[in-house]
């Protein structure tokens, strides 16, 4: 690619995707309303991914405590009276507190569902059906409704009844943990709620598939999504190998068994991942290491040759020895110069401080009316015409009660007051996680 041509391309993309122009563009899911009755991570992420793309998300919580995730935060520390674990999956939502054990609360919820396009819940299978506000009841009032039931084990089948589930249950039952980590060491959990997040992504994807069907036919439908099944889907060649050869898969440490070379190596000031599966990339890596002859060595010259364990092991040892003498930035620069993949294992600070991620909005900085300056992981994909965005941060329980009940259901202030007095509608408990920051002095609830 000619230098000048390339420069011109990146000028064009910089203008096309300009972070500063995000709010001048429309939203892909404008006009789509998502009603969310979920807790922890799986359900909230399902709705959050749709919200980032422009859907209006009404998050219903049971007052006054609300979502359990309000009390899940690193080392149990709160910031401005809020859980740091609650922000990443609850953006730009309208927070409503409704007691669904009360008949009048159920009636409010039914009314909200009749005005919604997508409903997301993650109760144990059949709970909302028993309460009279499940799929069977809701789709009668609103046949266009797309009903997403998130769970650990699904709405039916032997494990679906009476068995609780969390992210790590999904990691454990799916085989994910058994193929991760190092042989002979205790098993480890993924350091993030991977089963929840991936599950939310899969559930949101199915909701949009259903939306396309509705765009064509007007019909809503039921989506039964189980997070354990989401993780089983991600286990790449595990199942096909078992089926063909009967060979089980165990942990393989930090190397990629199918691509050679690809491993995470220690270096002078941290860790780097290096990968060079294509022959031209591998040649570049050999040059960078000052070992150009390795590229034509018959043991290493082609990917099928490098994949043989007796060739892979000495090759990875050679790369490890080379990487150990260098700093992260030096190895990254060598990769860019010689055309192979090389990057640091990023820490939270690396991500927070990265000008590239800030320019792309993948680290998203904004000012929230209640919490002030915020810096968070931002929307993943950049859409040129309808960019995803964060508008505001998660809010205390019931923060938007009046806004939602007046705007969507036309309730008068006195009617809402009556519901509040009867504890059908409510807001935050006076405890960290649920309540506003200490310096909040009333005023408008944006």
């Amino acid at each position, binding site marked *: 690619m000619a230098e000048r041509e390339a420069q011109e391309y990146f000028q064009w993309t910089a203008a096309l995707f300009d972070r500063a122009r995000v709010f001048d563009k429309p939203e892909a899911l404008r006009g789509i309303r998502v009603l969310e009755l979920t807790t922890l991570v799986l359900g909230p992420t399902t709705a959050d991914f749709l919200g980032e793309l422009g859907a209006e998300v009404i998050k219903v919580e049971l007052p006054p405590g609300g979502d359990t995730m309000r009390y899940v935060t690193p080392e149990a520390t709160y910031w401005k009276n809020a859980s740091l674990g609650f922000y990443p999956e609850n953006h730009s939502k309208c927070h409503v507190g409704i007691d669904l054990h009360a008949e009048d609360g159920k009636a409010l919820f039914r009314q909200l569902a009749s005005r919604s396009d997508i409903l997301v819940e993650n109760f144990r299978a059949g709970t909302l059906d028993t309460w009279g506000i499940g799929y069977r009841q809701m789709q009668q009032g609103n046949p266009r409704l797309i009903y997403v039931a998130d769970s650990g084990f699904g709405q039916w089948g032997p494990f679906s009844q009476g068995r609780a589930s969390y992210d790590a249950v999904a990691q454990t039952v799916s085989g994910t943990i058994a193929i991760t980590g190092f042989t002979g060491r205790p098993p480890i959990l993924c350091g993030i709620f991977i089963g929840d997040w991936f599950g939310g992504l899969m559930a949101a994807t199915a909701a949009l598939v259903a939306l396309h069907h509705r765009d064509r036919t007007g019909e809503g439908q039921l989506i039964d999504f189980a997070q354990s099944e989401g993780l089983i889907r991600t286990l790449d060649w595990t199942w096909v190998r078992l089926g063909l050869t009967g060979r089980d898969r165990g942990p393989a440490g930090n190397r990629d068994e199918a691509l050679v070379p690809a491993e995470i190596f220690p270096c002078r000031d941290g860790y780097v991942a290096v990968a060079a599966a294509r022959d031209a990339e591998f040649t570049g890596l050999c040059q960078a290491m000052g070992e150009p002859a390795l590229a034509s060595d018959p043991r290493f010259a082609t990917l099928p040759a490098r994949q043989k364990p007796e060739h892979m092991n000495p090759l990875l040892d050679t790369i490890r020895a080379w990487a150990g003498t260098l700093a992260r930035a030096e190895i990254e620069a060598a990769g860019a110069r010689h055309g192979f*993949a090389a990057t640091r294992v990023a820490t939270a600070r690396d991500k927070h401080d990265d000008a590239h991620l800030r320019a792309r909005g993948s680290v998203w900085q904004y000012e929230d009316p209640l919490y002030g300056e915020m810096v968070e992981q931002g929307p993943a994909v950049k859409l040129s015409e309808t960019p995803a965005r964060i508008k505001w941060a998660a809010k205390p329980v019931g923060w938007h009660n009046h806004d939602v009940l007046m705007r969507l259901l036309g309730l008068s202030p006195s009617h809402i007051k009556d519901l509040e007095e009867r504890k059908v509608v409510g807001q935050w408990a006076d405890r960290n996680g649920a309540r506003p920051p200490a310096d909040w002095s009333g005023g408008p609830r944006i």
Partner: protein
Amino acid sequence: MSDSPPASDGRHGVPWPQFAKDLSDPAKAHDKPEALDDLRVLDVSSGNFAALFTSSILAEFGAEVIRVEPPTGDVARLYSPEGVTHRGTGLAYLVEARNKRHVTLNLHTEQGRLLLVRLARHVDVLIESELPGQMDAWGIGYRQLSVLNPGLIYLAVSTHGQFGPRAAQVMPDYDITDQALSGVPYVTGEPEGEGPAESSAPTKQGNWIGWYVGGGFGALSVLAALHWRVVSGRGQFLDLTPSEAEMRFSDAGVIWYHAAQRIQERVGGLHIQVFPYTLIKTKDSYSFVAGFSDINFTGLTNIMGRPDLKERFATTKDRILKARELHQELERWSADLTAEDILHRFQDYMVHKRGPGTVATARLNRPEEVLAEPHWWERGVLQKVDDPDYGELLLQAPPWKMSRTPPRIKWACRPVGADNEHIYLKLLGLGKGDLQALRTAGVI
């Protein structure tokens, strides 16, 4: 066709699990319509399982996906543990070729690029994974193709993206580097000093999670763009990096640093946000157990017969900060129990409501043990597909159960170029003679 029987037929008395199964059993998928059968997708990606997973999802829901490979086949067909192949194709590709048509086209030739331009007029979605700017330099990028096809949804997959300070940096996209950049390995694994140096390190997920997360976001954004196209008639350019996609998942990582300048570190099998939420050694294996909120911890200590632990680890904070100590208590309890014993005790407590709290457990299953659980087979999560070209293959099925437009697997894979005659005739009117000439010229 109606989802909902009239109230009078008595089916409202049917228990929920039965009702839900009747509605969404994937065994009946082939009798129902497909949501995306109005969509045609051209996947010209190279050696990239994020892109391949995106097109797999679209294909599972009914899109006509045309995989474009170089005449020698996509390098993705070589990715396989120990280089194992089955009928000429690596194991990983056999999983992500489902329902896709396979044609060949050499984009390194002028004639090949001209053919791609002609194909692009006929498709709704194009997926590529070249280095940023490469397709544009070849004259087949979004700028050029969208002039001919303004409704085109163009998904480009790369590690650093199409814009930003690092966009022009040469960086082929791989799962391991995507995982590393996401920051997830940094917080996964044993902390330094816990064991041998080799394993006390940032640890990748064993599977291609970076690529799978990237591919999932690819499908989500294509579908959002599709809805926008229904509304506006306009296509768009989607810039996807699997590294940022997985980074989006990194819990409180960046906000914790923003709020408290704290960098999340590794804790092995423990957890920094919730505890007990951990793996414990049993007589026969390992089990995961959870009971982290006050009420759920009460449930767990009831099952253990250790109410004293409630006093010693009274608050959420106590349990997180004294996790190691509590973990030892759990393992003292589990040492004489099998994973099955623990599951039985938990289920007994939950099903018979013997006390407060919701507790969860699971035996650590190796993949082979996963296959032994009837639950997954009943739900159609794993499927033996009888493929005309590749024989019987055990594959992970699409993970969603849907009442009206369920996803499905129709076939597993096709040999390189197997659909050249069908696709080039259908879309471009090229006959056998034309194709022979293109073959001779090294174009297909």
